[in-house]
Structures are given as structure tokens and as C-alpha cells.
């Protein structure tokens, strides 16, 4: 095909876009045709997903549908059997310092002898060659704890905190390394409504400077703050939050379900069911 005046400009734009994408990738997450199986069991099939910089996306889906697997693929803890996964244009293990990760606290040993500050400082480990923490590290950890309003608990035993406080400390630990992408695994499980609200306020503020991806099984609540929803059940589908409706949920969960409204916009008398 020869370049005529008509198609010349779009071609240049396309090339230019490609160049910019290499230098400063606009996609925080870019997955192409990735599949993953544990031995024989296919967990994720032909995943195509891109999450732009600055997005606040929540990953939802039934248990066993592959949410955790997707998260581990994004972290580079698992490798896809086929396809590619890029975080800011590079394989996840090459860009680990740009990723902050908050695991579920339930897998941690609660008797472990660490203080809140000890836990937060762990987020600074990757930044140094030597094992000792510097004043800079301590300042960064304090600042991160301040950000989640836990800086008054520095010397408290991690075990003595409530569920919501533990989650916040783990977020601080993820923040200490100044990530550009924050991944959270079920931050809303095991905490009460009030802490959940605080948590989302913190995340909303953090979202102004970083991309946030969180795994949740609670679809209704998250839709108030998040910008897009990634549905995972063997396959992966991304929706902007405005298009959430019954058909989408039916697609993902299979079968006919009644949707429960969490938006609290109905009148005090309750809404009328049809």
C-alpha cells in the first residue's frame, strides 16, 4: 500500500503513539492473550486486559474464578503459560519497584513479634543494598503511616490492632516504596462498615497519584468509588462502572440472580419489588 495524503497523517499518529507508549507507557496494565493453568486445570483463558494509568479498578468474580491467580500474574509471582503481561510496558518482575502490594492479612501469623513500624519498614527493603534502615527509610515509613492515619501506633504490637487497622498498616507498607500501581487483595473482607468507608477515602486520595487495582467480592459497594470493574471467571471482562447491570452479573456469575441494591438511594420505606 502506498502512502497517499489521505492516510499519511493517521499512520504518523499511530507510529508516534507507539513511540510514546514505549518511552512512557499509558497503560498501567496490559495483558495480551494470557492463559494460565495449574497442571491440567485451566484457571484463566485468553485474557486481554488493559488498565490505563490513573484508573481505579476493582476485580470481582466468584471464588475459584481466578481473581487471586490474576493478581499473582500481575505481581509476577506466577508466569502465564501463554501470552504476555506488561506492567508499565515491562514484564512484572522487571517493574516490581513500581508495584505496591497489600495482601490479605489473614495469611500472616498474628503472634509474630513485630511492631507497626517494623511492618511498615519492610516496604523499604527493596530500596537498599545494605540490610540497615536509614533515617530516610524511617521518615518514609512514618510518612506512609501518617497517610493512613496510623502514625500514632508506631510502637504497637501488630497483633494488638483491629482488622481495619492492620489493613491500613499493610497499605502503608505498600506505600513506603512509592509505587505507581497499588494492588490490594480483598481489603474489605473482615472489616466493619465504618473502617471500610475510611479505607475507601484513603484509597480515593491515593488514586490521585497512582493507579489502583483491588480484588473484592463486594460488587455493590465498590461501584461508588471505582472507575471500572474487571470481572474474572475463567475469562476476564472489563466494564466501566456506569454499565453495571443485571446482564453483566448474569454473564459472570451464570444463572439468574436477583441483584441486591447497595446504593442506598431508595426511600426510607424501602423500594418496591416487582
Amino acid at each position, binding site marked *: 500500500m502506498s502512502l497517499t495524503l489521505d492516510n499519511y497523517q493517521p499512520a504518523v499518529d499511530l507510529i508516534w503513539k507507539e513511540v510514546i507508549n514505549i518511552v512512557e507507557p499509558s497503560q498501567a496494565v496490559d495483558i495480551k492473550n494470557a492463559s494460565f493453568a495449574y497442571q491440567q486445570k485451566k484457571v484463566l483463558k485468553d485474557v486481554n486486559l488493559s488498565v490505563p494509568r490513573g484508573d481505579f479498578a476493582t476485580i470481582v468474580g466468584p471464588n475459584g474464578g481466578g481473581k487471586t491467580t490474576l493478581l499473582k500474574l500481575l505481581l509476577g509471582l506466577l508466569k502465564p503459560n501463554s501470552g504476555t503481561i506488561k506492567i508499565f510496558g515491562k514484564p512484572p518482575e522487571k517493574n516490581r519497584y513500581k*508495584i505496591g*502490594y497489600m*495482601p490479605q492479612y489473614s495469611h500472616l501469623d498474628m503472634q*509474630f513479634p513485630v511492631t507497626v513500624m*517494623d511492618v511498615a519498614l*519492610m516496604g523499604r*527493603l527493596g530500596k537498599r543494598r545494605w540490610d540497615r534502615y536509614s533515617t530516610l527509610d524511617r521518615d518514609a515509613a512514618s510518612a506512609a503511616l501518617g497517610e493512613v492515619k496510623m502514625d500514632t501506633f508506631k510502637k504497637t504490637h501488630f497483633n494488638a490492632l483491629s482488622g481495619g487497622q492492620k489493613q491500613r498498616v499493610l497499605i502503608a507498607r505498600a506505600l513506603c516504596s512509592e509505587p505507581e500501581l497499588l494492588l490490594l487483595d480483598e481489603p474489605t473482607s473482615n472489616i466493619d462498615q465504618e473502617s471500610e468507608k475510611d479505607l475507601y477515602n484513603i484509597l480515593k486520595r491515593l488514586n490521585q497519584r497512582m493507579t489502583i487495582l483491588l480484588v473484592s467480592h463486594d460488587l455493590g459497594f465498590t461501584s461508588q468509588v471505582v472507575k471500572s470493574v474487571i470481572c474474572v471467571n475463567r475469562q476476564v471482562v472489563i466494564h466501566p462502572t456506569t454499565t453495571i447491570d443485571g446482564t453483566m452479573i448474569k454473564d459472570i456469575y451464570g444463572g439468574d440472580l436477583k441483584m441486591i441494591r447497595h446504593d442506598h438511594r431508595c426511600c426510607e420505606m424501602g423500594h418496591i419489588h416487582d
Partner: protein
Amino acid sequence: MGLLASISFGIIGTYVVTKRISYLAGAISHSAFGGIGAALYLNRTFGLSWLDPMMGAVASALAAAIITGLVSIYAREREDTVIGAIWSVGMAAGLIFIDLTPGYFEISSFLFGDILLISSKDIIMVLVLDAFIVTSTLLFYNRLLAVCFDDEFATLRGINAHGYYIFLLCLTALTIVLLVRIVGIVMVIALLTLPAAVAGKFTTRMWKMMLLSIFFCMAFNTAGLGLAFFQGLSSGPSIIIIAGLTYLVVISLQKFKEMVKKG
């Protein structure tokens, strides 16, 4: 000897308790018996007079540490089976080797320990081990802490968590082999974990727990030896009984305190 060894035991015991690998440590200690048997057999049958039973113990304990470490990293669902197998096969191999070896051996000193048989060479070995473990802990304290607390997160921060884990297991293996001299293979786990378990009840930081468990380990050793000496009992079991009773008392008191608090 007991006091010197307490330094290593207190530190490694703290790691074993907090990382919850006392079962792994048990397998390592029992597999050391396989090495002891093999060394005795090679020594007598092939005239390798330089081959000390303790060298065999070190070799087989290190091998067991690396195998159990790799198994627990890569095959999580079958971990306990493999560890159980190493545990008893190590023991069985030791007994078979001793059967094959001409002459009679007093194996009970390996199984249950005998502090009176300790030589000046052993003391030098303990000093070397203490120096090695203290240095390693000082050099890698924060990394080991992160690996023990949350190995997945440590990996994501660019730390070779698997490497540090295997390293920790090897340190555990070396400590256990030295500990065998005092309380024997069967009771090693108690002396490794009980001081740390007691210390864990009083502190909220890893390094304080280490210092405190060194102290408790020294106290248990001294009290146990005292009891053994004045009552004419075996030294190993006396130490373990005192450690066990202290642990029991500490947990009971703690439960009691909680109940009083609640009213």
C-alpha cells in the same frame, strides 16, 4: 557448654518458633541420626578414622534442611508427608547402619544426650557456631524478619526469599546438630522451641525475643543440670522437664490473667 550453646539456640529457636517450622526442625534433627549411623559404619568398616559421627550428623542434617526447604517451597500440598518421610527414614537409616557396624554402641547418648561426654573440641565448635549465627543475624536481621513475616511480600521487594529461607534452615540444621550433644535427637525440638515460646509471651519485637530466649535457654540449662546433679537424674530430660514446666506455668498464668481481666 550449655551456656555458650544457648546463644545459638535462643536466636535460631526464635526463628523456628516465629516461622512455625518446628516440625521441619524435628525432621532435620531425626535425619541427623542417619548421618551419625552412616559415619560410624564408614568409620569402622572402611577404617576412615577421621570420620567423626558428628560430621555425618552435620552432613545429613544439612541435606535434610535443603530437601525439606525445597519441598516446602515447591510442593506445598505434600509438604507434611515428605517431612514425615524424612523424619522416620533418617532415623531408620541410622539404626540400619548401626546394625551393620561391627561392635556395640551406646546409642542412647545420641538419642537422649549426655552433657558429660562433651569434649573441648565440642566447645570450640560451639564458639564458632555462635560467632557465625550472631554475625549472620546482625547482617541479615531485617531481611530475615521480612522473609519470616511475609515471604511473598519480601519476594516482591526484590529479596531472594527462598534463598534466605534455605539459609535459615541450614543454620537451624547446624544448631540442632550441636544441640544433640546436650539433650539428644529426640528432645532437641523442645530445647530449641520452648525458650523462644516462653520469650514470645513477654515481648513484641524479634530481637528482644531473641535476647530473652537466650536468657531462658541458659536458665533452663543451668537449672536442669543442677537438678540432674543433685538428684542423680539424666541431664537431657531434666533440662527438658524444667523448660516444659516453665512453659506450662507461663501459659497458665497468662490465661489466668486474661480471665481475671474479663472478670
